[in-house]
């Protein structure tokens, strides 16, 4: 290990966004995002490994991965393949989609009490419901299955709680065509209430989030489907009403088919809304209504909206044909491309990205609609690999290209837990995963309702969250981890309570910590600072507190929470 660290130290410096040599910018040599004249300087190999690791697993790279890349930079490609096969990719994909699908909200119309469950299960209840559609997508994305399965399979994913409270029956991995479980505690399952196959668009989790008020007649659900799966947002078009003709119910209903301001949307929206009446609730807070799909209501659109189900002009013989219709819609794949690329590039993909989206879409199709093919294409793009801008970069590039990213609350919580064993919870609530009493939006996340876009920049609130998280996690390490026999420890494996800064083991431990937290060796200056910190705190508060101080510093260092 010492020899390896010495090699690392000799080869690499440390910084928040270490970049490679622009003259050997491999990032611009290949991939659909490649351009003739590069405008960026790519990250160096270790920084790129860390970025990819955090984007694909939500965690910093393992030390052996760092060592492998240092030994052979091309090893990174094999590491990516490992990551794309790992269960962590599934969780990360779900988290990435959570920022866009916004299903992880703090409350639904039904509560934990509606099902007679203990109130202490509230967080788990809300989390499980919101995670169902996300993890289903992630399971398809990580399995060797075409993405169109997301809207056509006749199963979903469920944990023990959902299996208990919803009409679900667990099915085998073989039946679902999976090689391993979707996530720890989650299994493939099939609804038993008669709902047709349709994957994501037949999940309770999606339509509990996007429920319909009585007077909305499922239009909100239709708009949500178009927005989420087709990137076709009916609601973005400002409209101006000729309101004088809308003042009685009949003319209001007529207006949706006759008023020019209304027709454009409603001609498509209403027949699509008619396809969601199996999810229609006669009482929007009644648990039996919310829990079950209602097959007998599938044609109620004719009664309420005056139209039978259609998919953008194509009649549907019931919602059973909705999933296949989405799967056949070219907008579905293009939208998926935009969502996945946006998640990996940490920005909104717009119409200005048309040509790049088309190139990624080609890669997606070339991979037989496996999401992995799309992901590889985005990861290979110049923009993804960018660590700094060249002088040739435009002002638009300055804004758009995320040469450095901030960890999301999910990434932060998962990374800290992976390294220290500490998960910030209170009364069972994941404090970086809720906003009732927690700190999700303070840390830069979305609550799915009032705050719907992730924060890309640090703020005072985010830094305060980070500070307290670092303090708590660091103390947890020294009180829990350090108390274990060395061979059982997670982090402080090379020292004990008597180790001083003069011991060789001390520097070894520090260097290992740097590799673990920052994915690269420490600089001499950093080691000197941390040694001085250790000595000062050890003198005042003891060795354990000194290690806690060092760990807190490593977590708050921008080399940890940015990538």
């Amino acid at each position, binding site marked *: 290990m010492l020899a390896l660290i010495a090699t690392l130290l000799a080869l690499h410096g440390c910084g*928040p966004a270490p970049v490679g040599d622009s003259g050997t910018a491999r990032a611009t040599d290949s991939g659909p995002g490649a351009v003739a004249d590069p405008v960026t300087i790519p990250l160096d190999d270790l920084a790129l490994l860390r970025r990819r690791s955090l984007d694909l697993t939500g965690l910093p790279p393992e030390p052996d991965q760092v060592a492998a890349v240092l030994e052979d930079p091309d090893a990174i490609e094999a590491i990516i393949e490992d990551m794309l096969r790992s269960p962590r990719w599934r969780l990360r994909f779900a988290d990435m989609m959570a920022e866009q699908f916004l299903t992880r909200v703090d409350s639904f119309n039904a509560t934990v009490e509606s099902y007679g469950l203990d109130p202490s299960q509230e967080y788990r209840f809300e989390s499980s419901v919101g995670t169902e559609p996300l993890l289903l997508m992630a399971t398809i994305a990580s399995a060797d299955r075409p993405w169109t399965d997301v809207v056509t399979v006749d199963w979903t994913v469920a944990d023990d709680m959902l299996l208990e409270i919803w009409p679900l029956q667990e099915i085998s991995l073989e039946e679902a065509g999976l090689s391993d479980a979707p996530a720890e505690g989650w299994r493939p399952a099939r609804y038993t209430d008669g709902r047709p196959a349709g994957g994501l668009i037949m999940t309770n989790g999606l339509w509990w989030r996007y429920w319909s008020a009585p007077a909305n007649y499922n239009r909100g659900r239709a708009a949500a489907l178009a927005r989420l799966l087709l990137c076709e947002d009916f609601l973005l078009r400002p409209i101006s009403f000729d309101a004088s003709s*809308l003042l009685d119910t009949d003319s209001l209903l007529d207006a949706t088919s006759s008023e020019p301001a209304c027709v454009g949307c409603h001609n498509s929206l209403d027949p699509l809304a008619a396809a969601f009446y199996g999810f229609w609730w006669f009482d929007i807070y009644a648990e039996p209504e919310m829990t079950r799909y209602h097959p007998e209501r599938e044609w109620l659109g004719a009664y309420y909206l005056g139209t039978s189900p259609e998919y953008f002009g194509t009649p549907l013989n019931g919602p059973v044909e909705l999933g296949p219709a989405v799967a056949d819609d070219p907008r579905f794949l293009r939208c998926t491309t935009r969502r996945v690329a946006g998640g990996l590039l940490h920005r909104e993909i717009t119409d200005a990205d048309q040509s790049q989206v088309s190139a990624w879409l080609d890669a997606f199709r070339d991979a037989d609609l496996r999401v992995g093919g799309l992901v590889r294409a985005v990861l290979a793009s110049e923009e993804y690999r960018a660590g700094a801008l060249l002088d040739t970069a435009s002002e638009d590039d300055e804004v758009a290209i995320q040469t*450095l990213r901030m960890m999301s609350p999910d990434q932060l919580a998962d990374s800290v837990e992976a390294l220290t064993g500490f998960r910030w919870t209170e009364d069972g609530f994941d404090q970086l995963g809720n906003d009732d009493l927690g700190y999700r939006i303070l840390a830069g996340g979305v609550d799915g309702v009032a705050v719907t876009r992730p924060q890309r920049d640090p703020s005072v*609130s985010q830094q305060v969250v980070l500070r307290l998280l670092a*303090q708590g996690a660091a103390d947890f390490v020294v009180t829990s981890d350090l108390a274990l026999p060395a061979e059982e420890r997670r982090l402080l494996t090379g020292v004990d309570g008597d180790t001083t800064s003069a011991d060789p083991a001390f520097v070894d431990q520090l260097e290992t910590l740097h590799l673990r937290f920052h994915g690269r060796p420490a600089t001499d200056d950093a080691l000197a600072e941390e040694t001085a910190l250790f000595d000062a705190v050890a003198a005042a508060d003891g060795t354990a507190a000194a290690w806690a101080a060092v760990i807190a510093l490593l977590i708050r260092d*921008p080399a940890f929470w940015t990538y």
Partner: protein
Amino acid sequence: MPGWLLSGRRARAGTSGEGRLLFVFCTGGWDPTECIAPMLGTVVENNPGLVEASAHGIPFVTTEERPAVREFFESCGDRLAIVHGVEARSVAHDVCLRLMLTGSTLPGGNDWPSTVAASSSQDLLLPMVHISGPSYAADHSGSVVRVGASGQLSRLLDGSGMTDGDLAVDLPSAEAASRVDALVSGRLQAAAAGGGRGRAGQLLDLAAAADGRIADLIELGGELDLSGGQDFVGQAAIAAELMERGLCRTAMVEFEGWQGLSWDTHSDLPLQGHHFNTLMEGLSSIMADLDARRGSRGGPLSDEVTVVVLSEMGRYPRINSRGGKDHWTFTSAMFLGAGVAGGTVVGGYDPEAFTGFRVDLTTGALDDGGVALVPSHLGATIYALAGEDPAAALPDHPPIAAVIDG
């Protein structure tokens, strides 16, 4: 005297003449005709028993069961301006929220309070305080300090947010924490110095700036309870306290209606009455609180803070089969306090169609050749009240001059 005042490291909001704004957002879509926009005897249907009244030249409707409404108009009408007939241009909650606060349907915009806060020429500790309600701050997250609807920031600052957690942990000694803080600051500043052009440099600059505020914020948390906001009045009091101390320029609080039952009354129109009564009671309390606090110029804080009361949409003029009202694109807004031409009503609604009339922006009078009001006019007015240049951000939408005193 707290260190951040003694040190003089930070400017105090208000001392530069930059206006301050407290936003109260009524989420769900209010029905102005149930209180602030009398439409009795028109195409609009209302709850029974409403009677029209006026105070300080502002007409309103109320009932005996809503005493706080009359009290509010009588006590605050002389510094209240109401704008009617603003067309949100959508009837979907999400989109109307964005429109009403950013002027655009597009995601990724910046709302009025965060834009004003970010425009401040001063280095404020909490440029915008987001306590509850909608927030759009794509480019201004460095200016927005989220407090949390249940006072989460307070628990972060005093450490109880960690020590009350499920895993037993101890916080470091003050000296150890201080040593770590100093090293973190050094590393952030060094990283920012080398951040370079583009997003990396911007992100690290913002991180260093945010980190530079933590010590002051912790000190503030030790003397000010940020967790006291159990309702919008309490949350507004926190914002007022921060404004009185010169620490913040804008704030957002949400009022979800009486007992949190939402303004989105598709099936229970009588709730609007309860909501407005509670809103007006709260606004009276907020104004009394601002009156009792001292502003930076020596007078009451209410002379320096404008309260902006918004909802994302109005409600359809007819009562539906469930005894409620559905969404409507036309709505009203209220401006209260500093810089506001009191006793003013701008615009109005067509009694036959319940659409907004065009107005003369200067006089506020109805004018067929005038302007059809949209949320960006409210935004421009907000900028003007804050002392910012509306034309820079919204060149096509002049402010409603009639709302602005003088």
